[in-house]
């Protein structure tokens, strides 16, 4: 059996390892547009910050490809998939045949839609090499702008601040991390950032950048100007599947897969940021482009490709972030729509202890939570959401500070 994996991120990497475990004899080719070993993408912000060195980023040993008998085709991006002849073609026009194909191409950063975005010293923060470029520019940067209040923007701002640069965060939403948290937690987070010297502006957007060859200034939609020698765009990501024949493979926001990570073509699978399946909390197709999902989906794709029909229950959005002394953990549906009638929300804020706890239920099932501080046992709640089982104990006890696993034991 000849397996081809497009992508050497964590989904592709775990899929390759899983394939090798279940099929010791099959041939495996991994095509990746980044050269080098698979590495931990979420850690590049720690590298920017200076908290870890470059050596901490790889997640596999130097002989990874060799040891598993994988043929790497690196520094290459796939431009075409011919599903009739079962071939993929890379940018240098090399055709590669497959029996089973896994698309684990991840996602690409979204542009900010501002003029002159291609000026020098305006960066995305998606790859290790982009952070390396940022680091060379840092010594000459006094003011940095970060566009976007999401996870990437957040981590870029934090990293630059820790490097001693004055940072302004420009957010379109009314509060930071608006995709993860609600207004209450968002404002708590904003205060933490501002107390630490980060300038946070909400409800703003950049309309253009200005400079000769290098960026010097940003102009906001309200006409105001901000000086900057460095800018980072954290305006989200979108799944990378441009190269696919859309008449052959069903694509929505991401590549549509079934519970076996199979696309509409039975010999083609998808996993990771590029894939779209049912979100457990939302109960509808969704892309959850997060690291732990890529790991899980890569393994399930590998098992199914090797002939083991393991089924996937669905993805769950979740995130944990530590910012200065404040910890935030979120999962599932945190900000339900006011139109949702069978939703119950329980929340409690303790300003003295700087804690916030919010639980979202759909009838008797937990479908979301947001915690500010006291996050250590959050995984119990994650597991409750994932189980999709009704909560059999009083919901109040989930809110109590002494909630722990043993409260769920019913014997």
């Amino acid at each position, binding site marked *: 059996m000849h397996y081809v994996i497009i992508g050497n991120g964590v989904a592709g990497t775990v899929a390759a390892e899983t394939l090798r475990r279940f099929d010791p004899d099959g041939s495996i080719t991994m095509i990746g547009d980044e050269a080098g070993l698979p590495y931990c993408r979420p*850690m590049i912000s720690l590298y920017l910050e200076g908290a*870890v060195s470059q050596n*901490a980023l790889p*997640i596999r040993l130097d002989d990874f490809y060799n040891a598993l008998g994988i043929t790497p085709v690196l520094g290459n991006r796939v431009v075409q998939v011919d599903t009739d002849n079962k071939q993929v073609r890379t940018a240098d026009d090399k055709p590669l045949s497959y029996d089973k194909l896994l698309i684990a191409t991840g996602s690409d950063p979204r542009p900010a839609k501002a003029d002159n975005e291609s000026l020098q010293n305006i960066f995305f923060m998606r790859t290790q090499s982009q952070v390396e470029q940022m680091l060379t520019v840092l010594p000459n940067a006094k003011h940095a702008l970060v566009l976007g209040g999401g996870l990437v923007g957040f981590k870029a701002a934090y990293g630059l601040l820790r490097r001693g640069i004055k940072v302004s965060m420009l957010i379109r939403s009314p509060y930071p991390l608006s995709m993860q948290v609600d207004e209450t937690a968002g404002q708590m987070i904003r205060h933490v950032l501002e107390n630490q010297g980060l300038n946070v502006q909400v409800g703003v957007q950049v309309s253009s950048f200005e400079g000769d060859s290098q960026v010097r200034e940003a102009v906001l939609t309200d006409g105001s100007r901000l000086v900057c020698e460095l800018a980072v765009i954290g305006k989200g990501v979108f799944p990378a599947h441009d190269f696919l024949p859309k008449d052959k493979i069903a694509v929505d926001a991401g590549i549509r897969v079934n519970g076996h990570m199979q696309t509409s073509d039975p010999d083609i699978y998808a996993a990771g940021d590029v894939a779209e399946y049912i979100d457990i909390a939302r109960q509808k197709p969704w892309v959850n482009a997060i690291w*732990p999902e890529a790991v899980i989906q890569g393994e399930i794709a590998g098992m199914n490709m090797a002939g083991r029909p393991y089924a996937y229950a669905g993805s769950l959005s979740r995130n944990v972030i530590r910012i200065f002394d404040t*910890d935030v953990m979120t999962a599932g549906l945190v900000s339900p729509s006011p139109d949702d009638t069978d939703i119950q929300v329980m929340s409690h804020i303790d300003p003295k202890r700087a804690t916030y706890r919010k639980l979202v239920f759909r009838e008797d099932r937990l479908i979301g939570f947001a915690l500010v501080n006291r996050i250590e046992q959050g*995984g119990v709640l994650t597991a409750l959401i994932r189980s999709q089982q009704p909560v059999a104990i009083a919901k109040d006890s989930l809110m109590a500070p002494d909630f*722990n696993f*043993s409260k769920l*034991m019913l014997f």
Partner: protein
Amino acid sequence: MREVIVHPERCVGCMQCMIACAAAHSKTGELFTAIAETPLPKPRVHVGVGRFEEGFPNRCRHCHPAPCMAACLPGAICRDQKTNTVLIDPDTCINCASCAMACPYGVIRYHEDNSAPAGKVVAIKCDNCIHRQRQGKIPACVEVCKVGALTFEEMSTAMKRKTDEISRSMSAEAGAAEKSPGFALLKTIKKARTELSAR
């Protein structure tokens, strides 16, 4: 292969397992001196309060596959095959708490520890007292438990014992196979009290 097995119905909530665990993971290894150490040693087993104020020793199950291992960003979590122990490497750990988000049992804590570089907060959880096992000893929590809520044995042995208990209870002549009638009464009173106050 022997492993730590929890028998929750026997736990009296005395928390001696927590103290023994912390002492076993201290620099000096003795309770008397452990309480004066910096950083202060902390337990890896957590006696939580149940619904009826009964105790439960919540410890890492060394799951296979382990959700924490899959979620770990820098790959700091691995398994010692010989003892089936899931281990966190404090040097590689970046304190991101992804493992806390993944652990269905909530058994991971974050603090400084003498096993970690000085001043570094890392993820800490039960390590099956692997250092004690290598010296021919049993895990500290098991050693100290007076009521048999924690045992160190082959899973098959424990399951056979349970099967025998249940089989005996099916016999027509079976009397109350209660091993600890006083404690069973206490638990019943606690449960009744909780349920009555809920009404």
